[in-house]
């Protein structure tokens, strides 16, 4: 397996004009899958996830020169990705002039329109259940459930206390469980 370059080294290379583009390509390759799945679970469709991911990386390109190394690159990228997701969902809400719950229903409908969708399969029920959660609780659930992120790290990304995040995750798990058992 190809060894990944340390973030500090990548950032140093990014500051050198000669290696800037190469190091940025390596940053994309290093984090693309984690960030893609984080975004995809929020916006559901691949096309939307791809748009959000690419726009996010372009913003990163513009801001990376001013990135302060007192926070981790990984945390910073997740924060940008999360904000981009929430902005995207907000824009969709404004464009369609509907409430957020309608947008969430729209996400559920997108799931149901998937050619592989099977309402009897637990994993699909789970996805539909996740879409019923409020956006920020969905972010917390996904980061903890899928990315297995420690609360301490999540706290830095979402700028919320660890206690509040833990309570949010516990509520989310119980809501999802109830939804699945009652559907």
């Amino acid at each position, binding site marked *: 397996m190809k060894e990944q370059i340390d973030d500090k080294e990548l950032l140093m290379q990014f500051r050198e004009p000669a290696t800037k583009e190469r190091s940025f*390509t390596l940053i994309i390759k290093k984090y693309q899958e984690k960030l893609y799945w984080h975004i995809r679970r929020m916006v559901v469709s691949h096309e939307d996830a791809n748009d959000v991911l690419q726009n996010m990386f*372009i913003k990163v390109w513009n801001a990376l020169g001013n990135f302060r190394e007192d926070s981790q690159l990984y945390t910073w990228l997740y924060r940008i990705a999360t904000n981009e997701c929430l902005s995207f969902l907000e824009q969709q809400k404004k464009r369609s002039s509907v409430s957020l719950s309608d947008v969430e229903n729209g996400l559920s409908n997108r*799931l149901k329109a998937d050619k*592989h969708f099977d309402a009897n399969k637990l994993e699909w029920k789970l996805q539909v259940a996740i879409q019923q959660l409020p956006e920020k609780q969905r972010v917390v659930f996904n980061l903890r*459930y899928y*990315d297995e*992120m420690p*609360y301490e790290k999540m706290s830095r990304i979402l700028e919320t206390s660890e206690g509040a995040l833990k309570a949010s995750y516990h509520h989310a798990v119980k809501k*999802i*469980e109830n939804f699945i058992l009652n559907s």
Partner: protein
Amino acid sequence: MKSTNDILEELRELSPVLAGMEKRNVFTVPAGYFDLLSEDILAGVRNEGNTDGDTGSGSIEEVPHGYFDSLAETIMGKIKSTQVETASEETRALSPMLYSIRNENVFEVPAGYFEELSNAVVSRLTPQQAKIVVMKRRTTTFFKYAVAAAFTGVMALGVFKLTGPSKTALPDYVMAGLKIENIDQEFSKISDDEIVKYLEAEGSDVKAAIVANSVDENELPSQEEYLMDEKALDKYLNNINLGDLKN
């Protein structure tokens, strides 16, 4: 007893109400607490001595019954309670059902998507600069105003000729035009030479109209020329041979 009486007297002076109330303790202690208190304190003192390294007076019989049986579990419990619970442990504890399906992914990604993603992003970082053609736009603007000015001049001239106090005779085809209903049809009967002849005879507004309709935009003075010489346009117009333009 004198002092007690003094205190009571003091209280009576301060608050007759309080001094008159019966003193009753509302707090309680466990039954036999005071009977065993001294023994408990001594046992505490002995334990304290043991922790300081004085093991001589200590004995295994003084350890609570079953203490060592549960000691390892107690310590492990305390260690676990201070450890940070991992996400999967937490999920398993909260919902074994969700834990069991956590690795199922229902979403699909197009083949080769991640291999091409970085190229797609990098290609968007240096967009091509839009071509800016400044002069074309400015000459067009000038041309637009020139046409508008000429048209307005011709219209004003026409109105003046028709309504002014010293009317001069208009050509027959113009007078006929005032009476006709289908202007387009009647205009088509007039030759270009007749129109030019009339316009040449009717002053500078008409010349401007001819210029506006005939000149090549690219030959007009540039923006820099206007800035350097405010009479650039006049000079240009004076150099135009209207006889050439009408052909």
